């Protein structure tokens, strides 16, 4: 208290003198920039090769261990995904603790432990340090790799993949990797349903045994611990860890395309296009251009005031956000400029992207832009130093990438030294509007034509494989829609057989967050009933009979427009293709497209109402593998579709065991039962 009074008393005395000195009319100048003191970690190396970095910081009574393995990227091939799973499997139980016991023990001390394919992270209060070390060692050295946990993890991964399978951003990310880095580079690989199915404990154990080795390990210990204590602790606990022969790998350096072209992934349900202008760059970490490249990217697409954001969002309102990245990497870096835009402005947006790339490549940047970018980077560099983890990562990077000892100490000085000429030179070297993959994931029918002005438009499927959408030559001579139907009837079990079917009942189910959704359909060529239930509850119902078409949601009838009613009537047919002639539909064989990586004939079907649907028939099996329709919704047109696969003969008729219904998102349903020529109760369709 006494101190407080004294202080304000002193202030009162000279306050009036000081006031006159401030000029409020302009912003005060900064005082001289402070020298940044990054701090030196203590380092030592165990006999087994483990390199340890200790950053002592007693601000908080907390300690964090982070272990990183420095290995060359691993090419996973047809089992893509196993490397990442190997990292996750470490947390699924040890030889001493089940997964549940492990979770409980970690929670009890309020700690956190995470594992991944290239290391682990563990943190707790200092006073729980010994227990944390015990748990960490158990996880790291005694993983149990239980079979049932792998199955659970695969199941989770598969449902994640199923959910993201049709997500345009996920598609863009996968295809981008393949276009930029190619098949033969690990950066170009991504996990698929097939690759995940193939993963076994063998790969996972082999990966763990090969790469979880001290001689490629960097361990950062940060926090409330002295280097002496840390050394003792690590020696005691990690000295027995055996080193191993860790293989190295070399990959050919990916190169940008000779010529800019458009890689289109045709996604017919899209109302927005995902645009990535992208190519590989050779920009090694710590290389001489890295800081200049960061400045360059900051100006082009690095923040809210960047050129791309100002142009595509503020000026043109094409998108909520447009940005770019120019990333340094030990093996191969990349440039990507990206945005999601409405279908109708896709080509205009690409045009602005290319114009901005061209402009910065030719003209460089202005002094004001350069100053603002430097200030922003310097500020964010300084703020990052608040975390002691940053200090550790600087030290580890310096060792891993053979950077000069003072690389980070001189970072701001080197940033300040970047000139307009440097940025211009970097723009010419790294911004390559003439050698770019312009990847667009969107609705081809609406956007493809206008994209031709940017270069050849090539079509790619979701797996990043190129195909020819207009390859009419692949349509066998003389093939017509009707012949495709005839083949289909044969494949189903023969026209006679299917013509004898008078009624059918199918039940498909899917599980969703622990609940089972049931889709039941009954049809007899005159009537149709569909019910979607959850447990005992009927969530929605559609009825079509001679007199009427009705739809119900949770027991309440919902009004249907006449057009929808008329379209629903065609659902009464068990095999609608048998009845096309009577229904007055027109059909046209339009080409070949891929459905789940297999070629399929596409037949366009126009109903009397004018509604157009497309049916896809596998070129080999002849079976119908997909139907799609574009509908008018409250937010414009949406495309819904169903995919059929895994056919099985039931009573001599091929029935798909899997049915994916896509309505905004995929519902993966599986066949429970299919019955033909059943007894139908009188009131079934009322």
């Amino acid at each position: 208290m006494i101190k407080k009074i004294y202080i304000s008393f002193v202030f009162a005395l000279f306050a009036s003198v000081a006031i006159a000195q401030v000029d409020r009319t302009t912003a005060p100048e900064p005082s001289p920039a402070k020298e940044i003191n990054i701090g030196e970690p203590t380092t030592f190396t165990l006999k087994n090769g483990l390199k340890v970095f200790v950053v002592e910081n007693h601000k908080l009574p907390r300690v964090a261990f982070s272990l990183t393995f420095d290995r060359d990227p691993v090419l996973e091939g047809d089992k893509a995904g196993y490397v990442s799973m190997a990292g996750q499997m470490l947390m699924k139980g040890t030889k001493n603790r089940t997964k549940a016991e492990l979770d409980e023990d970690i929670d009890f001390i309020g700690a956190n432990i995470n594992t991944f394919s290239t290391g682990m992270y563990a943190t707790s209060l200092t006073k729980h340090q010994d227990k944390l070390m015990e748990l960490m060692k158990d996880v790291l050295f005694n993983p149990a790799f239980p079979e049932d946990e792998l199955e659970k993890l695969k199941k989770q991964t598969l449902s994640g993949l199923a959910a993201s399978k049709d997500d345009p951003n996920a598609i863009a990310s996968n295809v981008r990797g393949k276009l930029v880095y190619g098949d033969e580079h690990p950066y170009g690989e991504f996990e698929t349903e097939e690759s995940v199915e193939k993963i076994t404990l063998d790969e996972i154990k082999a990966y763990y045994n090969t790469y979880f080795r001290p001689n490629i390990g960097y361990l950062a210990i940060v926090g409330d611990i002295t280097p002496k204590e840390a050394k003792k602790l690590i020696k005691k606990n990690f000295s027995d860890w055996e080193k191993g022969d860790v293989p190295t790998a070399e990959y050919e350096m990916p190169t940008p395309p000779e010529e800019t072209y458009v890689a289109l992934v045709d996604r017919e349900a899209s109302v927005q296009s995902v645009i990535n202008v992208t190519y590989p760059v050779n920009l090694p970490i710590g290389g001489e251009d890295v800081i200049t490249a960061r400045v360059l990217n900051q100006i082009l697409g690095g923040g809210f005031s960047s050129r791309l954001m100002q142009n595509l969002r503020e000026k043109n309102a094409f998108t909520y956000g447009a940005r770019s990245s120019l990333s340094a990497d030990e093996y191969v870096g990349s440039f990507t400029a990206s945005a999601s835009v409405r279908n109708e402005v896709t080509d205009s947006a690409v045009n602005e992207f290319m114009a901005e790339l061209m402009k910065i490549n030719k003209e460089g940047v202005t002094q004001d832009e350069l100053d603002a970018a430097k200030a922003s980077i310097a500020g964010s560099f300084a703020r990052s130093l608040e975390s002691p983890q940053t200090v550790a990562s600087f030290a580890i990077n310096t060792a891993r990438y053979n950077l000069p000892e003072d690389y980070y100490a001189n970072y701001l000085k080197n940033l300040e030294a970047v000139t307009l000429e440097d940025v211009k030179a970097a723009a010419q070297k790294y911004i390559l509007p003439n050698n770019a993959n312009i990847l667009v994931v969107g609705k081809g029918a609406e956007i493809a034509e206008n994209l031709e002005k940017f270069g050849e438009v090539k079509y790619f499927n979701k797996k990043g494989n190129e195909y020819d959408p207009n390859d009419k030559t692949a349509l066998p001579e003389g093939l017509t829609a009707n012949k495709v139907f005839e083949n289909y009837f044969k494949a189903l079990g023969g026209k006679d057989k299917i013509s004898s079917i008078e009624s059918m009942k199918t039940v498909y189910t899917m599980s969703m967050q622990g609940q089972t959704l049931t889709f039941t359909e009954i049809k007899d060529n005159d009537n149709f009933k569909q019910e979607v239930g959850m447990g005992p509850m009927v969530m929605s119902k559609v009825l079509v009979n001679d007199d009427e078409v009705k739809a119900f949601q949770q027991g309440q009838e919902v009004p249907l427009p006449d057009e929808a009613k008329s379209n629903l009537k065609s659902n009464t047919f068990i095999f609608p293709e048998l009845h096309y002639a009577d229904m007055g539909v027109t059909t046209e064989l339009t080409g070949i497209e891929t459905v789940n990586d297999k070629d399929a004939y596409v037949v366009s079907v126009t109903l009397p109402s004018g509604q157009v649907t497309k049916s896809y028939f596998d070129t080999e099996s002849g079976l119908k593998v997909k139907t799609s329709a574009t509908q008018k919704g409250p937010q414009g047109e949406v495309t819904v579709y169903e995919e059929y696969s895994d056919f099985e003969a039931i009573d001599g008729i091929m029935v798909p065991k899997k049915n994916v219904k896509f309505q905004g998102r995929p519902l993966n349903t599986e066949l429970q039962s299919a019955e033909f020529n059943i007894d139908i109760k009188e009131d079934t369709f009322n």
Partner: protein
Amino acid sequence: MMKRLIIGSLCLLMAFGSIAQKKEIEFTEFDLDNGMHVILHQDNSTPIVVVSVMYHVGSKNENPDRTGFAHFFEHLLFEGSKNIERGQFDKYITNAGGVNNANTSNDRTYYYEILPSNQLELGLWLESERLMHAKIQEIGVETQREVVKEEKRQRYDNQPYGTILPEIMKRAYTEHPYRWTPIGSLEHLNAASLDEFVEFYETFYVPENATLSIAGDIEIEEAKKLIEDYFGPIPRGGKEIPRPDIVEPEQKEEVRDTIYDNIQLPAVIQAYHMPAQGTEDSYALEMLSTALSGGQSARMYKSLVDEQQKALQVAAIPFSSEDPGLYLLFGLPTIGGDLKELEDAMDAEIKKVQKELISDKEFEKIRNQKENDFISGNSRMAGIAESLANYHVYYGDANLFNKEIDRYMKVTKEDIKRVANEYLTEDNRVVLYYLPKSQQNQ
């Protein structure tokens, strides 16, 4: 401007995290002659500085016919000042390599900048301009009305469950100004005249209602001089600052209602009246929420999400505030699950803590978790500056930053059982069922 959003005490809770440092953090505090309180924390390890001002004005200080004013000012006061052109406030900060933001709660309004430490003076200039002579003009008011309208749309109307707090508050409080939330009413803002905005500014944006909290790479004496230079000349406001002394009458029976909203999954929310922050019982209630939903091994999570699979998510959140606040329980059922069943299961968990003392082992676990949360919560300068200001504004004791953990550690197992029985009763709660709009006509 979008980035500035209202935060309720939900977020404030995080700001309270801190305390169990082995080493106490040091700070200097004093009052300027004009009544402004200043708190300085020196830490020269990183060349950054946080300059912040907390005004002890929130939505509870508003005229019931002019709700939304406090939050509106959080926007309006970026419009410029006598010496800062319109739209330039943010630019000074970005060009200096800094970042900034502001937020408003029921109880206070907070502005801060994180700057390179050689730009301390810039931060002081900006904040003193804001307090001394901000531009309260028609053009700024018009602009910000539009921005706030957009914010309301994004954060409340179009945000799934965004209306939970307003809907709960207006049912839980009949008298106390917590019955409205900081976003307030657009009609009130539209109806307000420029004079009313000027009046609000002159009443609440005065040095005696402001706490300047600075943390980071500073030299105390140099900072003091600059603070005196920039804030010293600002005259005291001198008006009486309205502080509501309304005591919300005790709730006598359960309030239950259904809200139809733009959501896919329904939700159940229970809100129990709880004592004001800083009381012994409020600490016990916070410990209770760690037992109920602090992590995957917590009671409600383990039972309702893992074992019974009735819920996708459950949470117990003490919404504590300067005046008596609310203890919220939130449940999101699994798809197709029944809300009543979920609520019954939540009630069953409450019954358990009301009937049986928690075990010694569990008690130790939640103490460990609480301690860990506290210590991990405040490692950055931004958090330290805000927490020091909070402790001063709410308790008149910034040093609680170092001491508040003791209050949590004083809570016993018996306290936890007692507060569960005392506050988590049917008569003392509001229960809302949130249902998708599509179910409205059934």
